[in-house]
């Protein structure tokens, strides 16, 4: 049984009686521990694809099977549990809650997971150390640089020990050096923890660091 099997996935949007194709009949198999990058122009369907994989968007048709379980058929509660325990999200913007400190932001997914382990506090500290900002645990997002905020977001994505990290252009607004550092972190997490990473980027050089690179255009996968 494959780890992640995407089967004939299609997503259409209706805007003013006109139908747009977000994802057009995509089929794909991803192995556990794979580091996959997806490149493509804006509007090519990259975000739509990982949103469906991440369970925050329902497809129009097709299936996403994670270890044989079709996540598209799960109800809202089960889907939330799936996101909480198996997925770590990173977005293309600073996605930290401004009212929480760096460490509290890392701890946030823990309150949504049933049976929140009491050792989360320790884990959050270790994750922040791992991403290189152990000294910024009590800082608020407004006191952190863009790169530091991304590092907090990576630590947050890892708190619940996910199987997959979905990173949607996580370095889009960062300088080259910081971008490279963040990518190194992804490589480290993938290598050392065996976490499957699906990285969306417009930067071909960055995408080339992944084991597999896919390109999307008009909702379809090309150059697989």
């Amino acid at each position, binding site marked *: 049984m494959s780890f992640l099997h995407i089967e004939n996935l299609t997503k259409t949007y209706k805007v003013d009686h006109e139908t747009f194709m977000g994802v057009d009949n995509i089929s794909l198999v991803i192995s556990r521990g794979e580091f996959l990058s997806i490149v493509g122009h804006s509007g090519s369907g990259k*975000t739509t694809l990982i*949103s469906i994989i*991440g369970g*925050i*968007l329902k497809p129009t048709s097709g299936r996403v099977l994670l270890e044989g379980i079709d996540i598209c058929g799960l109800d*809202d*509660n089960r889907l*939330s*549990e799936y*996101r*909480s*325990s198996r*997925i770590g*999200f990173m*977005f293309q913007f600073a*996605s930290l*809650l*401004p*009212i*929480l*400190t760096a*460490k*509290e932001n890392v*701890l*946030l*997914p*823990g*309150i*949504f*997971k049933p049976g929140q382990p009491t050792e*989360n*506090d320790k884990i*959050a500290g270790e994750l922040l150390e791992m991403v290189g900002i152990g000294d910024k*645990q*009590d800082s608020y997002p407004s006191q952190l640089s863009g790169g530091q905020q991304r590092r907090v977001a990576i630590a*947050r994505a890892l708190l*619940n020990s996910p199987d997959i990290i979905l990173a949607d252009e996580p370095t889009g607004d960062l300088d080259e050096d910081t971008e490279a550092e963040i990518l190194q972190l992804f490589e480290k997490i993938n290598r050392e923890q065996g976490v499957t990473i699906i990285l969306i980027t417009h930067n071909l050089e960055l995408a080339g660091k992944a084991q597999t690179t896919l390109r999307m255009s008009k909702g379809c996968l090309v150059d697989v």
Partner: protein
Amino acid sequence: MAQISFFSVALKNLKRKTFRTGVLVFAIALLVSLLIFAISFTVSVASSLKKSSERLGADLVVVPVGARGFAEEFLLESKNTSFYMPINIIDKVKKIEGIEDLTYHTYLSSISGLCCDIMPTRIVAYNPDTDFIINPWLQESLGRPLQPGEAIAGSGTSENLGLGLLDVEATIFDNRFKIVGVLEQTGTGLDHALFMTEENLKNIIESGKSPLKKGDISIIFTKLKKGYDPDFVGRVLEGEIPEVDVVARSDMGEKFISTLADINKIFLLTTILASVLTTFLVWAIFSAIANERSKEIGIMRALGAKESHIVRLYLLEVLVLGILGSLLGVLAGTYLSAMLAGTFSLLKNISAGLTGGQQTAIAFIGLVIGTSICVAGAMMPINRIKKMEPLLVIKED
């Protein structure tokens, strides 16, 4: 330790905009204080009337025809009034079927001047042999009957007359009285009277300084035999003795009860309007919050938050606001009730206040209503928040 919980996140969210939080808390506090004041006022008046009529211990009160209002003012409101009827009415009342026991009082208002050396007050003369109203109170406070030349002050009278010390002497209508004590508060208008036996009245009448004539009495209190309906016996009494009006215990304070009903309507209308306004304010603020934080909600959903988690988070915010506002409202309302009691003649003239139990119950009602209104106002925006599509709000700019 940086452990976080739904509650700590809710608190941090509330601290995010302190002015807005303050406005909401203030609005809820205002509503609840109005509610507490209205309920306290109504309950205080209603329970004082009930308590007063119960403490008098009579099933029927017989007064001179046309003096019913005066009698109620005297017994319930502590107003100085005098009204008289001939003592032979007692014999006529005794003959009515169903009357088991009766006693009578004579009321007299003292005046400022050479004849009296105390502030104007009202004097209640009673018959110690037949009395079943004053005697029990005397037994509690003095432990013995009053002797000729002695008087005892009601709890309110002692304050009014400045009778801090016992065994002071006073001249009333040229007669010297030894005031031998102060009665416990009874919660009736009689708390503001000076009591003496009717024997002392003879000397006052003889002095010729008072308007009182020999053989005058003010009021007859009757107890009925078991099984007799007070309303029926009252009607018979009024039919047989045209010189009297009869008030049943349950009808005591009818005038106030009707006034109270009107006041209640005004309070109810004001409270409903204030509730609607507060609900609307909460709705408007939480709608704004839903728009402001939509991206954060999307992120939380992506991080694994269920719809119920989002509801819990915002409901906690609402509950903290509601409970905080309501608690402040309870304190302000209770303080207002106490402070304003003296400025409302209806409350000022009625002796008894609220019991601890009543105050607790009113505070609880205020807390529940204030919090419920807050929750009701926020429910629609919260429902909208929980239904937000994560991806749509995350991508929103």
